[in-house]
């Protein structure tokens, strides 16, 4: 068959959002690829220049539907850096619990979407069902299911609800049990391994040079985690392992996320055990001083980063958002070329695309 370009997207089951992957195929083999983004560009950075500092928190929530809490937390961290604000320790611990729950929920959503990419409906529904437990916990904590609007500049919105600790510990135990079941369903399946092992190789040097971050980078054998290497919040007190895998393929990225979920459950247990008493919120000043602030967190998808410039008013002069997937997806051609059309789905699935933050 002659070579031809296929548009996978903007409306395609593979895309998990609204973007376009142009693939040039020779029969079933991919010979060239070109991602196109921008279909969901909302101009968040421009909108933020016209909002006061607290008003941006719900907007930062809407950057990513998969892990909205990380983004509002990152925004609050950035503004706290700009304002030189100390956050009460209880608030930091609550934040860590919430972020790690969000990370598990996000990874479970990824697992669900990835199962569908590979055509395994059972995986999709099981992962979505278990994600519901963490969504329910976050709902009890913050009052909403997807866009939590929970962190505040200088703390969090509410204290922990009653019985939250008990439920959270129960959810962590449940998660540990379920992860074993997933490993039966995924790792135990020969077809799953055939589809994943040796597919979508992104070598270590390429991953470093192309700016790929997060589980995708750790799947390429670089054990670099901002929670460990650039510690923020109360992560220095937590004892956890950085998941990494030397195989550089789709299976490695899958394993990294599975291990990360287990480690997140560990962090939640520790943070709940160490939860101090006291205030969970301080009153943030209305206006920020002139200057700049940066914040970076380990988003479930990679390195999330914000850069804020304050000009002495109650509105930021400039807010720049670094989206991990925006950079990672530019490395897609490196991973795709030479594999089959069916592998495009698997490889792009392991990137965990979230178009909300990519296009902003």
């Amino acid at each position: 068959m002659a070579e031809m370009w296929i548009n996978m997207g903007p409306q395609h089951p593979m895309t998990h959002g609204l973007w376009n992957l142009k693939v040039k195929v020779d029969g079933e083999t991919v010979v060239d690829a070109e991602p196109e983004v921008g279909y969901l560009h909302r101009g968040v950075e421009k909108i933020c220049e016209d909002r006061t500092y607290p008003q941006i928190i719900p907007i930062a929530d809407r950057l990513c539907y998969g892990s909205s809490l990380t983004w509002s937390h990152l925004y609050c961290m950035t503004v706290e850096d700009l304002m030189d604000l100390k956050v009460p320790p209880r608030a930091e611990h609550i934040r860590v619990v919430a972020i790690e729950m969000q990370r598990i929920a996000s990874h479970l959503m990824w697992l669900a979407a990835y199962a569908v990419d590979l055509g395994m409906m059972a995986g999709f529904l099981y992962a979505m069902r278990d994600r519901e437990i963490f969504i329910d916990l976050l709902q009890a904590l913050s009052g909403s299911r997807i866009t939590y609007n929970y962190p505040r500049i200088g703390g969090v919105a509410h204290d922990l609800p009653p019985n939250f600790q008990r439920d959270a510990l129960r959810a962590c135990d449940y998660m540990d049990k379920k992860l074993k079941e997933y490993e039966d369903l995924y790792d135990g399946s020969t077809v799953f391994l055939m589809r994943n092992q040796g597919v979508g190789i992104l070598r270590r040097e390429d991953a470093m040079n192309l700016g790929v971050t997060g589980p995708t980078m750790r799947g390429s054998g670089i054990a670099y985690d901002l929670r460990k290497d650039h510690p923020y919040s109360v992560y220095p007190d937590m004892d956890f392992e950085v998941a990494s895998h030397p195989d550089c393929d789709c299976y490695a990225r899958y394993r990294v996320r599975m291990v990360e979920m287990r480690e997140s459950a560990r962090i939640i247990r520790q943070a709940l055990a160490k939860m101090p008493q006291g205030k969970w919120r301080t009153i943030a000043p209305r206006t920020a001083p002139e200057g700049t602030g940066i914040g970076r967190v380990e988003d479930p998808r990679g390195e999330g980063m914000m850069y804020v410039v304050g000009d002495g008013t109650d509105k930021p002069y400039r807010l720049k958002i670094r989206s991990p997937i925006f950079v990672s997806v530019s490395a897609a051609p490196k991973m795709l070329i030479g594999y089959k059309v069916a592998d495009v789905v698997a490889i792009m699935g392991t990137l965990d695309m979230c178009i909300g933050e990519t296009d902003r």
Partner: protein
Amino acid sequence: MDIEKAPSMIDGNPEEKVLRSLAEGFPRTISGGEKLKSGVIRAHVERTDLYAVCQTLRDSLGFEHISMISAVDYPDRFELVYHITSYQSRLLLELVTGTPKDDPGVDSVSSVWGGANWQEREAYDLMGVVFRNHPKLERILLPMDTMFHPLRKDFKG
């Protein structure tokens, strides 16, 4: 280049080390090197020497990863802020360079770090800063036929 064997943060003062070697290598163009907090340093660089500085940063100082390129529209200049991470010494370098309003252009660093490619395209798209020697400097988030750069302060939607 093994991360596991790389010197940790306790070995000396990596922030000072980087700042000193930068200032020695480019005495005329590097200015205002300061340590913001632990693991974060900032330096200003003239835009003429940006490419050479970036190459030195990657090749001899071990900054393998470009985290973020942000363009800021100040009343008198465009400022480009490069946040560059070193995986080995766990450092974040904030490299600031300015470009005048009537000629917003710097050298592209996408041949140094592949990850800079799309971020430079984004900065060009939204702020209108031109990156010289960029492999494909096209709009990325906005449609191709857009006539404006929306993040500039003089843009009113």
